[in-house]
Protein backbone atom coordinates (compact mmCIF):
# COMPACT_ATOMS: atom_id res chain seq x y z
CA UNK A 1 0.00 0.00 0.00
CA UNK A 2 1.16 3.50 -0.76
CA UNK A 3 1.16 6.16 1.95
CA UNK A 4 -2.14 7.96 2.41
CA UNK A 5 -2.00 10.92 0.04
CA UNK A 6 -2.22 14.42 1.49
CA UNK A 7 -3.91 15.87 -1.56
CA UNK A 8 -7.67 15.59 -1.89
CA UNK A 9 -9.90 16.03 -4.90
CA UNK A 10 -12.26 18.74 -3.83
CA UNK A 11 -15.20 20.71 -5.15
CA UNK A 12 -14.65 24.47 -5.24
CA UNK A 13 -17.45 25.01 -2.75
CA UNK A 14 -15.98 22.35 -0.49
CA UNK A 15 -12.60 24.11 -0.63
CA UNK A 16 -14.37 27.27 0.52
CA UNK A 17 -15.75 25.43 3.55
CA UNK A 18 -12.43 23.74 4.35
CA UNK A 19 -10.56 27.02 3.91
CA UNK A 20 -12.96 28.70 6.31
CA UNK A 21 -12.46 25.98 8.91
CA UNK A 22 -8.69 26.18 8.46
CA UNK A 23 -8.97 29.96 8.97
CA UNK A 24 -10.74 29.43 12.27
CA UNK A 25 -14.36 30.01 11.23
CA UNK A 26 -16.54 28.29 13.80
CA UNK A 27 -19.98 29.64 12.90
CA UNK A 28 -21.90 29.38 9.64
CA UNK A 29 -25.50 30.42 9.09
CA UNK A 30 -26.93 29.98 5.64
CA UNK A 31 -29.81 29.28 3.35
CA UNK A 32 -29.31 26.75 0.54
CA UNK A 33 -29.09 28.05 -3.02
CA UNK A 34 -27.60 26.58 -6.18
CA UNK A 35 -24.72 26.79 -7.05
CA UNK A 36 -23.52 27.57 -3.49
CA UNK A 37 -25.22 24.86 -1.44
CA UNK A 38 -22.27 22.48 -1.05
CA UNK A 39 -20.45 25.00 1.15
CA UNK A 40 -23.33 24.86 3.62
CA UNK A 41 -23.52 21.07 3.35
CA UNK A 42 -19.85 20.66 4.18
CA UNK A 43 -20.08 23.20 7.00
CA UNK A 44 -23.10 21.40 8.48
CA UNK A 45 -21.07 18.21 8.63
CA UNK A 46 -17.65 19.63 9.53
CA UNK A 47 -18.35 22.43 12.01
CA UNK A 48 -19.66 20.13 14.79
CA UNK A 49 -16.45 18.09 14.41
CA UNK A 50 -14.33 21.13 15.29
CA UNK A 51 -16.56 22.55 18.02
CA UNK A 52 -18.35 24.97 15.74
CA UNK A 53 -22.01 25.73 15.09
CA UNK A 54 -24.01 25.53 11.87
CA UNK A 55 -27.49 26.98 11.61
CA UNK A 56 -29.76 26.83 8.61
CA UNK A 57 -31.75 30.05 8.73
CA UNK A 58 -35.13 30.95 7.28
CA UNK A 59 -33.63 33.10 4.50
CA UNK A 60 -30.59 35.12 3.51
CA UNK A 61 -31.47 38.13 5.69
CA UNK A 62 -31.66 35.87 8.71
CA UNK A 63 -28.45 34.14 7.67
CA UNK A 64 -26.30 37.23 7.57
CA UNK A 65 -27.86 38.74 10.70
CA UNK A 66 -27.04 35.52 12.57
CA UNK A 67 -23.49 35.76 11.25
CA UNK A 68 -23.20 39.35 12.54
CA UNK A 69 -24.47 38.17 15.92
CA UNK A 70 -21.97 35.32 16.09
CA UNK A 71 -19.15 37.65 15.13
CA UNK A 72 -20.21 40.06 17.87
CA UNK A 73 -20.03 37.11 20.23
CA UNK A 74 -16.35 36.73 19.38
CA UNK A 75 -16.48 33.90 16.85
CA UNK A 76 -15.12 33.94 13.30
CA UNK A 77 -18.24 33.62 11.19
CA UNK A 78 -19.35 33.42 7.57
CA UNK A 79 -22.11 32.56 5.13
CA UNK A 80 -22.26 31.45 1.51
CA UNK A 81 -24.90 32.28 -1.03
CA UNK A 82 -25.54 32.89 -4.70
CA UNK A 83 -26.57 36.03 -6.55
CA UNK A 84 -30.26 36.40 -5.53
CA UNK A 85 -29.27 35.73 -1.91
CA UNK A 86 -26.38 38.16 -2.22
CA UNK A 87 -28.86 40.90 -3.15
CA UNK A 88 -30.86 40.14 -0.01
CA UNK A 89 -27.72 40.35 2.13
CA UNK A 90 -26.68 43.85 1.05
CA UNK A 91 -28.42 45.59 3.95
CA UNK A 92 -26.55 43.57 6.55
CA UNK A 93 -23.25 43.90 4.72
CA UNK A 94 -23.65 47.67 4.98
CA UNK A 95 -24.63 47.33 8.61
CA UNK A 96 -21.58 45.17 9.37
CA UNK A 97 -19.35 47.79 7.73
CA UNK A 98 -20.41 50.50 10.17
CA UNK A 99 -20.79 48.13 13.12
CA UNK A 100 -17.30 46.87 12.23
CA UNK A 101 -18.06 43.19 12.62
CA UNK A 102 -15.64 40.83 10.89
CA UNK A 103 -17.40 38.34 8.64
CA UNK A 104 -17.06 36.70 5.25
CA UNK A 105 -19.74 36.34 2.58
CA UNK A 106 -19.00 33.91 -0.25
CA UNK A 107 -21.08 34.66 -3.34
CA UNK A 108 -21.05 31.83 -5.88
CA UNK A 109 -22.28 33.97 -8.75
CA UNK A 110 -24.98 32.70 -11.09
CA UNK A 111 -26.66 34.39 -14.00
CA UNK A 112 -29.04 37.25 -13.32
CA UNK A 113 -31.18 39.28 -13.11
CA UNK A 114 -33.81 37.92 -10.77
CA UNK A 115 -33.66 34.19 -10.27
CA UNK A 116 -31.87 34.12 -13.61
CA UNK A 117 -30.40 30.67 -14.03
CA UNK A 118 -28.47 28.42 -11.69
CA UNK A 119 -25.25 27.90 -13.60
CA UNK A 120 -22.56 30.59 -13.65
CA UNK A 121 -21.70 34.23 -14.32
CA UNK A 122 -19.53 37.09 -13.11
CA UNK A 123 -22.49 39.45 -12.99
CA UNK A 124 -22.16 40.64 -9.39
CA UNK A 125 -18.63 42.02 -9.43
CA UNK A 126 -19.77 45.65 -9.43
CA UNK A 127 -22.44 44.80 -6.87
CA UNK A 128 -19.63 43.56 -4.64
CA UNK A 129 -18.23 47.09 -4.67
CA UNK A 130 -21.39 49.16 -4.79
CA UNK A 131 -24.25 46.91 -3.66
CA UNK A 132 -24.24 47.81 0.02
CA UNK A 133 -25.57 51.31 0.60
CA UNK A 134 -22.99 53.91 1.57
CA UNK A 135 -20.47 53.16 -1.18
CA UNK A 136 -17.60 52.51 1.18
CA UNK A 137 -14.50 50.66 -0.04
CA UNK A 138 -14.95 46.89 -0.05
CA UNK A 139 -12.56 43.96 -0.03
CA UNK A 140 -13.42 41.22 -2.51
CA UNK A 141 -11.30 38.30 -3.73
CA UNK A 142 -11.99 36.15 -6.79
CA UNK A 143 -10.49 32.65 -7.20
CA UNK A 144 -9.60 31.02 -10.52
CA UNK A 145 -9.19 27.51 -9.16
CA UNK A 146 -10.26 25.20 -6.36
CA UNK A 147 -6.91 25.53 -4.60
CA UNK A 148 -7.15 29.30 -4.82
CA UNK A 149 -10.68 29.13 -3.38
CA UNK A 150 -9.18 27.45 -0.32
CA UNK A 151 -6.38 30.02 -0.03
CA UNK A 152 -8.53 33.09 -0.66
CA UNK A 153 -11.17 32.01 1.85
CA UNK A 154 -8.43 32.00 4.49
CA UNK A 155 -7.23 35.38 3.28
CA UNK A 156 -10.79 36.75 3.36
CA UNK A 157 -11.25 35.62 6.96
CA UNK A 158 -7.87 37.04 7.95
CA UNK A 159 -8.51 40.48 6.46
CA UNK A 160 -12.03 40.64 7.88
CA UNK A 161 -10.62 40.04 11.34
CA UNK A 162 -7.64 42.36 11.03
CA UNK A 163 -9.64 45.29 9.68
CA UNK A 164 -12.98 44.48 11.36
CA UNK A 165 -14.92 44.61 8.15
CA UNK A 166 -16.99 42.30 5.92
CA UNK A 167 -14.91 40.65 3.19
CA UNK A 168 -16.40 39.10 0.06
CA UNK A 169 -15.31 35.97 -1.75
CA UNK A 170 -16.67 36.36 -5.28
CA UNK A 171 -16.58 32.92 -6.80
CA UNK A 172 -18.91 31.47 -9.43
CA UNK A 173 -20.72 28.38 -10.58
CA UNK A 174 -17.77 27.26 -12.69
CA UNK A 175 -15.15 27.26 -9.93
CA UNK A 176 -17.68 26.33 -7.25
CA UNK A 177 -18.71 23.18 -9.11
CA UNK A 178 -15.28 22.14 -10.38
CA UNK A 179 -13.11 19.52 -8.69
CA UNK A 180 -9.34 19.92 -8.41
CA UNK A 181 -6.60 18.81 -6.07
CA UNK A 182 -6.06 20.63 -2.79
CA UNK A 183 -3.43 19.87 -0.20
CA UNK A 184 -4.81 20.90 3.16
CA UNK A 185 -1.96 22.36 5.20
CA UNK A 186 -1.32 21.25 8.77
CA UNK A 187 -2.87 23.67 11.29
CA UNK A 188 0.50 25.26 12.18
CA UNK A 189 1.30 25.95 8.53
CA UNK A 190 -1.43 28.56 8.08
CA UNK A 191 -0.96 32.15 9.22
CA UNK A 192 -4.06 33.26 11.08
CA UNK A 193 -4.96 36.82 11.99
CA UNK A 194 -7.32 37.70 14.80
CA UNK A 195 -9.34 40.80 15.52
CA UNK A 196 -7.57 43.30 17.81
CA UNK A 197 -8.41 42.88 21.51
CA UNK A 198 -8.46 45.79 24.00
CA UNK A 199 -5.14 46.70 25.56
CA UNK A 200 -6.80 48.84 28.28
CA UNK A 201 -8.86 47.79 31.33
CA UNK A 202 -12.67 47.69 30.97
CA UNK A 203 -13.24 51.06 32.67
CA UNK A 204 -11.01 52.86 30.13
CA UNK A 205 -12.29 50.96 27.10
CA UNK A 206 -14.36 52.69 24.40
CA UNK A 207 -15.67 50.27 21.84
CA UNK A 208 -15.19 52.45 18.72
CA UNK A 209 -11.97 54.20 19.75
CA UNK A 210 -9.62 53.18 16.94
CA UNK A 211 -5.98 52.23 17.15
CA UNK A 212 -3.31 53.81 14.94
CA UNK A 213 -4.46 51.74 11.96
CA UNK A 214 -8.00 53.14 12.36
CA UNK A 215 -9.29 49.77 13.63
CA UNK A 216 -10.94 49.70 17.07
CA UNK A 217 -10.21 46.83 19.47
CA UNK A 218 -13.10 44.47 19.96
CA UNK A 219 -13.81 42.16 22.90
CA UNK A 220 -16.62 39.63 22.62
CA UNK A 221 -20.06 40.54 23.92
CA UNK A 222 -20.87 39.32 27.39
CA UNK A 223 -17.59 40.02 29.19
CA UNK A 224 -16.51 42.87 31.48
CA UNK A 225 -16.01 45.25 28.59
CA UNK A 226 -18.97 47.36 27.57
CA UNK A 227 -19.56 46.77 23.86
CA UNK A 228 -22.15 48.44 21.70
CA UNK A 229 -23.27 47.41 18.24
CA UNK A 230 -24.50 50.53 16.51
CA UNK A 231 -25.27 50.76 12.81
CA UNK A 232 -25.98 54.50 13.06
CA UNK A 233 -23.25 57.11 13.04
CA UNK A 234 -21.75 56.98 16.53
CA UNK A 235 -18.97 58.29 18.74
CA UNK A 236 -16.11 56.34 20.31
CA UNK A 237 -18.44 54.90 22.94
CA UNK A 238 -20.90 53.73 20.31
CA UNK A 239 -23.49 56.34 21.24
CA UNK A 240 -25.50 57.62 18.28
CA UNK A 241 -24.25 61.00 17.05
CA UNK A 242 -25.96 61.01 13.70
CA UNK A 243 -27.01 64.64 14.04
CA UNK A 244 -23.40 65.76 14.32
CA UNK A 245 -21.81 66.42 10.90
CA UNK A 246 -18.32 66.08 12.39
CA UNK A 247 -18.96 62.55 13.62
CA UNK A 248 -20.59 61.74 10.27
CA UNK A 249 -17.55 62.91 8.38
CA UNK A 250 -15.10 61.25 10.75
CA UNK A 251 -17.01 57.95 10.83
CA UNK A 252 -17.31 57.59 7.07
CA UNK A 253 -13.73 58.67 6.33
CA UNK A 254 -12.23 56.43 9.01
CA UNK A 255 -14.04 53.36 7.68
CA UNK A 256 -12.70 54.11 4.20
CA UNK A 257 -9.20 54.92 5.42
CA UNK A 258 -8.71 51.66 7.32
CA UNK A 259 -9.06 49.75 4.04
CA UNK A 260 -7.33 52.24 1.73
CA UNK A 261 -4.22 52.17 3.91
CA UNK A 262 -3.68 48.53 2.90
CA UNK A 263 -4.31 48.71 -0.85
CA UNK A 264 -0.82 47.48 -1.75
CA UNK A 265 -1.11 44.47 0.54
CA UNK A 266 -4.65 43.72 -0.59
CA UNK A 267 -4.27 43.93 -4.37
CA UNK A 268 -2.68 40.85 -5.87
CA UNK A 269 -2.23 40.38 -9.59
CA UNK A 270 -0.36 37.73 -11.55
CA UNK A 271 1.29 38.46 -14.88
CA UNK A 272 1.95 35.89 -17.59
CA UNK A 273 4.12 36.75 -20.61
CA UNK A 274 3.71 40.47 -19.93
CA UNK A 275 7.36 41.55 -20.18
CA UNK A 276 7.29 42.41 -23.89
CA UNK A 277 3.52 42.30 -24.38
CA UNK A 278 1.84 44.71 -26.78
CA UNK A 279 -1.63 43.29 -26.25
CA UNK A 280 -2.74 42.47 -22.72
CA UNK A 281 -5.69 40.47 -21.50
CA UNK A 282 -7.05 41.50 -18.10
CA UNK A 283 -9.14 38.76 -16.49
CA UNK A 284 -10.28 37.26 -13.20
CA UNK A 285 -11.83 34.05 -11.95
CA UNK A 286 -12.08 31.06 -14.30
CA UNK A 287 -12.12 33.39 -17.33
CA UNK A 288 -8.45 34.09 -16.58
CA UNK A 289 -7.74 30.43 -17.36
CA UNK A 290 -9.33 30.80 -20.79
CA UNK A 291 -7.37 34.03 -21.18
CA UNK A 292 -4.06 32.37 -20.34
CA UNK A 293 -4.70 29.64 -22.90
CA UNK A 294 -5.57 32.27 -25.51
CA UNK A 295 -2.48 34.32 -24.77
CA UNK A 296 -0.23 31.28 -25.20
CA UNK A 297 -1.96 30.44 -28.50
CA UNK A 298 -1.49 34.04 -29.64
CA UNK A 299 2.23 33.81 -28.86
CA UNK A 300 2.46 30.73 -31.07
CA UNK A 301 1.00 32.89 -33.85
CA UNK A 302 3.69 35.49 -33.27
CA UNK A 303 1.46 37.99 -31.47
CA UNK A 304 3.02 39.60 -28.40
CA UNK A 305 0.17 38.95 -25.99
CA UNK A 306 0.26 38.78 -22.21
CA UNK A 307 -2.12 38.25 -19.30
CA UNK A 308 -2.76 40.17 -16.12
CA UNK A 309 -4.94 38.12 -13.80
CA UNK A 310 -6.25 39.78 -10.68
CA UNK A 311 -7.26 37.83 -7.59
CA UNK A 312 -8.37 41.05 -5.91
CA UNK A 313 -11.45 42.61 -7.45
CA UNK A 314 -11.71 45.25 -4.72
CA UNK A 315 -9.84 47.37 -3.96
CA UNK A 316 -9.23 47.47 -7.69
CA UNK A 317 -5.53 47.08 -8.64
CA UNK A 318 -5.36 50.62 -9.97
CA UNK A 319 -1.58 50.98 -9.97
CA UNK A 320 -1.00 47.72 -11.78
CA UNK A 321 -3.55 48.51 -14.49
CA UNK A 322 -2.24 52.05 -14.90
CA UNK A 323 1.29 50.71 -15.46
CA UNK A 324 0.02 48.05 -17.86
CA UNK A 325 -1.86 50.67 -19.90
CA UNK A 326 1.38 52.62 -20.38
CA UNK A 327 3.13 49.52 -21.69
CA UNK A 328 0.60 47.90 -24.02
CA UNK A 329 -1.47 49.24 -26.88
CA UNK A 330 -4.61 47.18 -26.33
CA UNK A 331 -6.19 45.67 -23.22
CA UNK A 332 -8.78 42.95 -23.85
CA UNK A 333 -11.16 42.41 -20.93
CA UNK A 334 -13.19 39.17 -21.15
CA UNK A 335 -15.98 38.78 -18.59
CA UNK A 336 -19.07 36.64 -18.03
CA UNK A 337 -21.29 39.72 -17.76
CA UNK A 338 -22.20 42.68 -19.94
CA UNK A 339 -18.87 44.40 -19.22
CA UNK A 340 -18.29 45.47 -15.62
CA UNK A 341 -14.64 45.43 -14.55
CA UNK A 342 -13.83 46.78 -18.01
CA UNK A 343 -15.15 50.09 -16.69
CA UNK A 344 -12.46 50.09 -14.02
CA UNK A 345 -9.82 49.15 -16.58
CA UNK A 346 -10.95 52.05 -18.77
CA UNK A 347 -10.89 54.42 -15.81
CA UNK A 348 -7.35 53.45 -14.82
CA UNK A 349 -6.03 53.24 -18.38
CA UNK A 350 -7.26 56.82 -18.82
CA UNK A 351 -6.91 56.75 -22.59
CA UNK A 352 -3.40 55.27 -22.60
CA UNK A 353 -4.52 52.02 -24.23
CA UNK A 354 -7.34 50.86 -26.44
CA UNK A 355 -9.83 48.84 -24.34
CA UNK A 356 -11.70 45.87 -25.83
CA UNK A 357 -14.59 44.33 -23.90
CA UNK A 358 -15.44 40.67 -24.57
CA UNK A 359 -18.64 39.52 -22.92
CA UNK A 360 -20.58 36.30 -22.52
CA UNK A 361 -23.95 35.95 -20.76
CA UNK A 362 -25.25 32.49 -21.68
CA UNK A 363 -24.11 31.02 -18.32
CA UNK A 364 -21.19 29.21 -19.98
CA UNK A 365 -17.49 29.80 -19.39
CA UNK A 366 -15.75 31.98 -21.96
CA UNK A 367 -13.54 29.84 -24.21
CA UNK A 368 -9.92 30.48 -25.19
CA UNK A 369 -11.10 30.85 -28.79
CA UNK A 370 -13.42 33.74 -27.91
CA UNK A 371 -10.55 35.66 -26.35
CA UNK A 372 -8.10 34.67 -29.07
CA UNK A 373 -10.52 35.85 -31.77
CA UNK A 374 -10.50 39.32 -30.25
CA UNK A 375 -6.73 39.31 -29.83
CA UNK A 376 -6.22 38.40 -33.48
CA UNK A 377 -8.85 40.92 -34.58
CA UNK A 378 -6.99 43.77 -32.95
CA UNK A 379 -3.49 42.42 -33.51
CA UNK A 380 -2.95 42.91 -37.27
CA UNK A 381 -3.26 46.66 -36.94
CA UNK A 382 -0.25 46.55 -34.59
CA UNK A 383 1.73 44.01 -36.54
CA UNK A 384 2.00 45.71 -39.94
CA UNK A 385 5.72 46.31 -40.50
CA UNK A 386 6.97 49.71 -41.55
CA UNK A 387 7.60 49.65 -45.34
CA UNK A 388 11.26 49.19 -46.03
Amino acid sequence: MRAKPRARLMLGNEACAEGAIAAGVRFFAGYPITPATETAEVMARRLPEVGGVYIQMEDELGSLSAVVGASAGGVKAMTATSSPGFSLMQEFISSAIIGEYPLVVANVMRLGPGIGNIVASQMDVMQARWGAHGGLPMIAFCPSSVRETFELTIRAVNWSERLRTPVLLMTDGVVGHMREKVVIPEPGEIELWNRPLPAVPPEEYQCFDPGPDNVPAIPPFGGKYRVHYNAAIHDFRGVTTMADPKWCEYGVRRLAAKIEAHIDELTETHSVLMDDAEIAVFAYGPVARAAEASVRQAREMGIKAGLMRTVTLWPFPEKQVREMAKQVEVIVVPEMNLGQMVLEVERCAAGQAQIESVTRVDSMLITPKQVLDRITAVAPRRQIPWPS
Partner: protein
Amino acid sequence: MQAKQWEVRLSGTGGQGLVTAGIILAEGAGIYDGKEVVQTQVYGPQSRGGASRSEVIISDEPVMYPEVTESDVLLAMSQEAADAYIHEQRAEGIVLVDSTFVKVVPETRAKVYAIPLTKIAREVARTEIVASIVALGALATLTGIVSQDGLEQAVLARAPKGTEEANRAALHAGFAAGHEVREQ
Protein backbone atom coordinates in the same frame (compact mmCIF):
# COMPACT_ATOMS: atom_id res chain seq x y z
CA MET B 1 8.66 12.62 -22.60
CA GLN B 2 6.57 15.46 -23.86
CA ALA B 3 3.89 16.77 -21.56
CA LYS B 4 0.54 15.43 -22.59
CA GLN B 5 -2.96 16.54 -21.75
CA TRP B 6 -5.95 14.23 -22.05
CA GLU B 7 -9.45 15.62 -22.29
CA VAL B 8 -11.90 12.91 -21.29
CA ARG B 9 -15.67 13.07 -21.70
CA LEU B 10 -17.85 10.47 -19.98
CA SER B 11 -21.38 10.61 -21.37
CA GLY B 12 -24.57 8.65 -21.13
CA THR B 13 -27.84 8.76 -19.27
CA GLY B 14 -28.60 10.16 -15.83
CA GLY B 15 -28.35 7.39 -13.23
CA GLN B 16 -25.46 5.55 -14.92
CA GLY B 17 -23.03 6.92 -12.35
CA LEU B 18 -21.04 9.06 -14.75
CA VAL B 19 -20.42 11.95 -12.35
CA THR B 20 -19.07 9.49 -9.78
CA ALA B 21 -17.02 7.78 -12.49
CA GLY B 22 -15.52 11.16 -13.39
CA ILE B 23 -14.60 11.79 -9.76
CA ILE B 24 -13.04 8.32 -9.46
CA LEU B 25 -11.04 8.79 -12.67
CA ALA B 26 -9.84 12.19 -11.45
CA GLU B 27 -8.88 10.74 -8.07
CA GLY B 28 -7.09 7.79 -9.63
CA ALA B 29 -5.05 9.98 -11.98
CA GLY B 30 -4.74 13.02 -9.69
CA ILE B 31 -4.44 11.71 -6.17
CA TYR B 32 -2.90 8.25 -6.67
CA ASP B 33 -0.91 8.78 -9.90
CA GLY B 34 0.00 12.37 -9.02
CA LYS B 35 -1.15 14.02 -12.27
CA GLU B 36 -2.87 17.40 -12.53
CA VAL B 37 -6.64 16.98 -12.92
CA VAL B 38 -9.85 18.95 -13.27
CA GLN B 39 -13.28 17.31 -13.11
CA THR B 40 -16.51 19.01 -14.11
CA GLN B 41 -20.06 17.87 -14.82
CA VAL B 42 -23.32 19.04 -16.23
CA TYR B 43 -25.92 19.51 -13.53
CA GLY B 44 -29.53 20.46 -13.84
CA PRO B 45 -32.59 18.83 -15.32
CA GLN B 46 -30.33 16.63 -17.43
CA SER B 47 -29.01 14.82 -14.39
CA ARG B 48 -31.97 12.38 -14.30
CA GLY B 49 -32.72 10.68 -17.56
CA GLY B 50 -31.68 12.26 -20.83
CA ALA B 51 -28.11 13.08 -21.68
CA SER B 52 -25.66 13.34 -18.79
CA ARG B 53 -21.96 14.01 -18.82
CA SER B 54 -18.90 14.34 -16.67
CA GLU B 55 -15.52 15.57 -17.87
CA VAL B 56 -11.99 15.04 -16.66
CA ILE B 57 -8.80 16.71 -17.88
CA ILE B 58 -5.63 14.83 -16.96
CA SER B 59 -2.27 16.49 -17.51
CA ASP B 60 1.39 16.41 -16.59
CA GLU B 61 1.23 20.19 -16.09
CA PRO B 62 -1.26 22.52 -14.38
CA VAL B 63 -4.47 22.61 -16.42
CA MET B 64 -5.25 26.02 -17.86
CA TYR B 65 -8.72 25.94 -19.42
CA PRO B 66 -10.78 23.68 -17.14
CA GLU B 67 -13.46 22.48 -19.54
CA VAL B 68 -13.31 19.98 -22.38
CA THR B 69 -13.56 21.61 -25.79
CA GLU B 70 -12.76 18.56 -27.94
CA SER B 71 -12.32 15.19 -26.28
CA ASP B 72 -9.32 12.92 -26.72
CA VAL B 73 -11.27 10.13 -25.06
CA LEU B 74 -15.04 9.79 -25.32
CA LEU B 75 -17.09 7.26 -23.40
CA ALA B 76 -20.64 7.01 -24.73
CA MET B 77 -23.01 4.84 -22.70
CA SER B 78 -26.20 5.68 -24.59
CA GLN B 79 -27.13 6.15 -28.22
CA GLU B 80 -28.12 9.77 -27.50
CA ALA B 81 -24.72 10.47 -25.95
CA ALA B 82 -22.88 8.92 -28.88
CA ASP B 83 -24.94 10.99 -31.30
CA ALA B 84 -24.47 14.19 -29.28
CA TYR B 85 -20.75 14.10 -28.49
CA ILE B 86 -18.93 12.18 -31.21
CA HIS B 87 -18.70 15.37 -33.28
CA GLU B 88 -16.62 17.01 -30.55
CA GLN B 89 -14.09 14.18 -30.62
CA ARG B 90 -10.52 14.53 -31.92
CA ALA B 91 -9.57 12.20 -34.76
CA GLU B 92 -6.38 11.07 -33.00
CA GLY B 93 -8.28 9.99 -29.90
CA ILE B 94 -10.42 7.01 -29.01
CA VAL B 95 -14.12 6.42 -28.52
CA LEU B 96 -15.48 3.69 -26.26
CA VAL B 97 -19.15 2.87 -26.68
CA ASP B 98 -21.32 0.64 -24.51
CA SER B 99 -22.60 -1.74 -27.18
CA THR B 100 -25.40 -2.77 -24.79
CA PHE B 101 -27.10 0.50 -25.78
CA VAL B 102 -25.18 2.04 -28.67
CA LYS B 103 -26.30 0.22 -31.78
CA VAL B 104 -25.20 2.73 -34.41
CA VAL B 105 -21.86 4.47 -34.03
CA PRO B 106 -21.96 7.82 -35.81
CA GLU B 107 -19.22 8.40 -38.33
CA THR B 108 -15.92 9.47 -36.83
CA ARG B 109 -12.25 9.38 -37.78
CA ALA B 110 -11.34 8.42 -34.22
CA LYS B 111 -10.64 4.80 -33.29
CA VAL B 112 -13.85 3.26 -31.94
CA TYR B 113 -14.01 0.40 -29.47
CA ALA B 114 -17.33 -1.29 -28.69
CA ILE B 115 -17.72 -3.21 -25.42
CA PRO B 116 -21.02 -4.37 -23.84
CA LEU B 117 -20.17 -2.57 -20.59
CA THR B 118 -23.60 -2.85 -18.96
CA LYS B 119 -24.00 -6.48 -19.97
CA ILE B 120 -20.60 -7.25 -18.42
CA ALA B 121 -21.59 -5.42 -15.23
CA ARG B 122 -24.74 -7.53 -14.94
CA GLU B 123 -22.72 -10.69 -15.44
CA VAL B 124 -19.80 -10.08 -13.10
CA ALA B 125 -21.48 -8.00 -10.39
CA ARG B 126 -25.19 -8.72 -10.86
CA THR B 127 -25.89 -5.00 -11.04
CA GLU B 128 -25.88 -2.41 -13.80
CA ILE B 129 -24.82 0.30 -11.37
CA VAL B 130 -21.15 -0.65 -11.80
CA ALA B 131 -21.21 -0.42 -15.61
CA SER B 132 -19.34 2.88 -15.41
CA ILE B 133 -16.64 1.11 -13.37
CA VAL B 134 -16.31 -1.53 -16.11
CA ALA B 135 -15.92 1.43 -18.48
CA LEU B 136 -13.16 3.02 -16.40
CA GLY B 137 -11.29 -0.29 -16.31
CA ALA B 138 -11.50 -0.62 -20.08
CA LEU B 139 -10.41 3.00 -20.58
CA ALA B 140 -7.40 2.48 -18.32
CA THR B 141 -6.27 -0.46 -20.44
CA LEU B 142 -7.00 1.23 -23.76
CA THR B 143 -5.48 4.63 -23.04
CA GLY B 144 -3.12 4.50 -20.05
CA ILE B 145 -4.57 7.82 -18.84
CA VAL B 146 -4.71 6.29 -15.36
CA SER B 147 -2.70 3.42 -13.91
CA GLN B 148 -4.62 0.25 -13.10
CA ASP B 149 -3.29 0.40 -9.57
CA GLY B 150 -4.20 4.06 -9.07
CA LEU B 151 -7.66 3.49 -10.50
CA GLU B 152 -8.28 0.48 -8.28
CA GLN B 153 -7.35 2.44 -5.18
CA ALA B 154 -9.67 5.26 -6.24
CA VAL B 155 -12.54 2.86 -6.94
CA LEU B 156 -12.19 1.11 -3.59
CA ALA B 157 -11.88 4.41 -1.71
CA ARG B 158 -15.21 5.56 -3.19
CA ALA B 159 -17.08 2.23 -3.08
CA PRO B 160 -19.84 2.23 -0.46
CA LYS B 161 -19.27 -0.33 2.30
CA GLY B 162 -20.31 -3.79 1.21
CA THR B 163 -19.93 -3.04 -2.51
CA GLU B 164 -16.14 -3.32 -2.68
CA GLU B 165 -16.12 -6.78 -4.25
CA ALA B 166 -18.75 -5.91 -6.87
CA ASN B 167 -16.74 -2.83 -7.80
CA ARG B 168 -13.45 -4.71 -7.88
CA ALA B 169 -14.99 -7.43 -10.07
CA ALA B 170 -16.40 -4.78 -12.41
CA LEU B 171 -13.07 -3.00 -12.62
CA HIS B 172 -11.10 -6.15 -13.40
CA ALA B 173 -13.67 -7.21 -15.97
CA GLY B 174 -13.15 -3.77 -17.53
CA PHE B 175 -9.36 -4.20 -17.59
CA ALA B 176 -9.81 -7.56 -19.32
CA ALA B 177 -12.42 -6.33 -21.79
CA GLY B 178 -10.19 -3.42 -22.76
CA HIS B 179 -7.31 -5.81 -23.35
CA GLU B 180 -9.49 -8.09 -25.44
CA VAL B 181 -10.79 -5.42 -27.83
CA ARG B 182 -7.35 -3.90 -28.21
CA GLU B 183 -5.97 -7.25 -29.39
CA GLN B 184 -8.70 -7.66 -32.01
